[in-house]
């Protein structure tokens, strides 16, 4: 690889925080505490006119983590997990609703744009799409000199020198061949190298890399990851690596945080998490990766459904509607019954569906939040028929996690009521070497499977 150890090493000035010796002794480079980023939803015109809030999306919902100097922290999650919003918040690109982000002890979550600007020299970002991150009408020299000019770092010959060094460092050499090229003349991998060259030109400490290789071809991904590892070693960089790809995270990261719907559900050393995933979501993710190994195939059981709407997250643990091991305290609610009925109807004959639909009537009201699910008979049956249908569903699949959350089934007053166990939000707690937010690990840490009506 082209990186030369003797080339310019970024200078760290001492007034910007504790010296490196102190930080490697446990002082995190970046410390995030109870970070929330909420986006308000704009409702209809009338609602806005009346200044009524239509609700909010909790993109990041109480995240706490530390990034140690020199480590690679992976933030892994599906789309909608809040991983990108978290990365953008670290860069000051979105304003946190509450919580704290400290960079070398300095609070940046509440920093004004003006106060934040000098910090951007130290915290840089690499985006997913290299094509969209480069101005198509700027040649590489102009593009790379841009941050130096904006931050008034260098001028004239010095700028040119820094640009050349940076291009050389990322492997765009011989430099003369590339320095006047436009992004359109470069391949995807070359563009991503140019983006990285621009990110390191100010001598940052921390790079937030948001899916830096996911747009690249398989045979190129390894090269870019190798370049990033070389730069980390030579320049003493720290990475926050945001990705949906567990395979690259396993290879690339020292620690990983698994995110689901705005929260960290499991965080710990990479080796630990991949060898012994604790959270059912982490387990599911690991088993679902398509692998060219002919000996391996997809598991028979995949979590159903998809990541839920963040504007109306599930009660309790956000993963419970999809979780194969969910039980009593996971947060069961009325709409889970709707999902259960719909899944059942998607599997039965049209005739059965139409008859059963007649028995329970409309199920749209189950969308409302509630601790009790109420079913009223439709035109095609009475309370007894509704109850019989519910009992039949349970008998057909007694191992379905949903029934573990049902405390009792009552009828009377012309309706059937399913009362659910009380749901609680799981919080991160230490289990072995990692931290997990899952009720399975509550109390004595035994993997419990109790609660509800299971006999």
């Amino acid at each position, binding site marked *: 690889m082209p990186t030369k150890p003797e080339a310019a090493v970024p200078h760290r000035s001492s007034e910007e925080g504790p010296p490196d010796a102190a930080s490697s002794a446990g002082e995190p480079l970046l410390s995030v505490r109870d970070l929330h980023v909420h986006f308000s939803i704009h409702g209809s015109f009338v609602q806005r006119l009346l200044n009524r809030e239509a609700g909010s999306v909790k993109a990041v919902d109480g995240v706490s983590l530390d990034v140690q100097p020199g480590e690679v922290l992976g933030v892994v999650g599906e*789309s909608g997990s809040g991983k990108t919003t978290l990365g953008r918040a670290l860069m000051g690109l979105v304003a946190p609703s509450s919580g704290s982000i400290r960079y070398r002890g300095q609070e940046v979550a509440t920093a004004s744009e003006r106060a934040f600007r000098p910090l951007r020299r130290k915290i840089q970002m690499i985006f997913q799409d290299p094509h969209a991150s480069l101005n198509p009408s700027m040649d590489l020299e102009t593009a790379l000199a841009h941050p130096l000019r904006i931050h008034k770092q260098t001028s004239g010959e010095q700028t040119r020198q820094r640009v050349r060094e940076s291009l050389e460092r990322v492997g765009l050499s011989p430099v003369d061949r590339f320095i006047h090229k436009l992004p359109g003349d470069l391949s995807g*991998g*070359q563009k991503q190298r140019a983006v990285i060259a621009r990110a390191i030109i100010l001598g940052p400490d921390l790079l937030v890399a948001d899916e830096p290789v996911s747009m690249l071809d398989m045979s190129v991904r390894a*090269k870019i990851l190798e370049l990033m590892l070389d730069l980390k070693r030579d320049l003493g960089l720290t990475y926050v690596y945001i990705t949906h790809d567990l*395979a690259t995270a396993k*290879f690339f990261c020292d620690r990983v945080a698994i995110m689901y719907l705005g929260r960290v559900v499991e965080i710990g050393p990479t080796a630990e998490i991949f060898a012994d995933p604790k959270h059912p979501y982490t387990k599911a993710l*690991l088993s679902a990766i*398509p*692998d060219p190994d002919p000996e391996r195939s997809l598991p028979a059981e995949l979590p159903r459904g998809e990541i839920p709407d963040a504007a109306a997250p599930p009660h309790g643990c956000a993963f419970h509607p999809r979780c194969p091991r969910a039980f009593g305290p996971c947060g069961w609610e009325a709409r889970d019954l709707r999902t259960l009925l719909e899944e059942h109807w998607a599997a039965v004959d049209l005739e059965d569906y139409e008859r059963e639909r007649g028995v329970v009537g409309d199920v749209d009201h189950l969308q409302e939040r509630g601790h009790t699910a109420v079913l009223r008979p439709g035109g095609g049956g009475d309370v007894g028929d509704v109850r019989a249908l519910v009992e039949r569903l349970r008998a057909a699949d007694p191992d379905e996690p949903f029934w573990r959350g049902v405390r009792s089934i009552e009828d009377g007053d012309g309706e059937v009521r399913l009362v659910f166990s009380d749901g609680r939000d799981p919080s991160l707690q230490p289990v072995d070497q990692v931290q997990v937010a899952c009720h399975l690990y509550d109390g004595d840490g035994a993997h419990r499977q109790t609660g509800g009506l299971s006999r």
Partner: protein
Amino acid sequence: MSETQDERFRPEAARTDVLSVRDLRVWYGTERGPVRAVDGVDFDLRPGETLGLVGESGCGKSTLGRGVLGLLPTGARAAGAVHFRGDNLVELSDKQMQTRRGPELGLIFQEPMTRLNPLMRISQHFEETLRVHESGISKDEIRIRALGALRGMGIPPTRYRNYPHEFSGGMRQRLMIALTLVLRPALIVADEPTTSLDVLVEAQIIRILHDLRRNFDTAMLLITHNLGIVAEACDRVAVMYAGHIVEEGDAKQVFSAPAHPYTRELLRSTISLRTTGLHYIPGAPPDLADPPSGCTFHPRCPDAMAVCRDQDPVEVRTSGGQRVACWLHGPDARIPDGGREPLSRQEISVADEA
């Protein structure tokens, strides 16, 4: 190549093939001359069979899929033969192709939301699709057929009158597959059907595609860059490089014992959970307007020999049953004296690599 023709395509199988592609070529006119995106491709597809077409961006896999369906962009030309139900699709007019797309040739795209009309209910999508291709179909029949197709994709009938925006990304892709299947086409081309989806949803869709071949007699050409998806969902795999199919065979066989160096290197450079060291293929894919002489992979091939630079490879069948176009597998009689001398790889500057 003609002398190996009989060996490659068993005549008894050829009669039952849904699709039979012979020497298909597709090229785009550019300022720098023709770009040969698909350069002499042969393959067959039997009923109920899924063939995975894999390769990196720019290898011509999407162009091949579009060429089969007659959906090439303006400026592209096709030649060769695409035999489907007694016709050569390459020679049909646009209008003739249009009547075949839908009821006979299905297509699943990458971005489901761009293919669904946001102002139409799901029921209306099915009504439109079925009425266009099966005039006189009754409303009841439409409902029964549509709900049957939705059930096959695990979409509850309660959602039949919803709008596309009320569905999640994975559900939309299921809708697209249901809309394609409701016409019962003999062949489906699926172009990166799971690329925009999350891991868990992707696995669900792969499962559905995997089950399709058991439940329907539909043959599928599954185009993807993800080798893992092929291993999960396909019976056979064809690996494309620079417009050619360099290797084709049983998916499990190709992945466990790749015959072509490109397949082998591509598998090695794929980062999976078992990756312990980074590996990549040196160099970059060739410029298709000016491809290298001989085997187009020879400048990057760790096993390149003198003959690879000088002569186009000949397709042979390996003992493992794969079709492979690589001089390593012979035929020995065609390799000139000294042709097996290793080729010293030219120095490639790092930047050329990416």
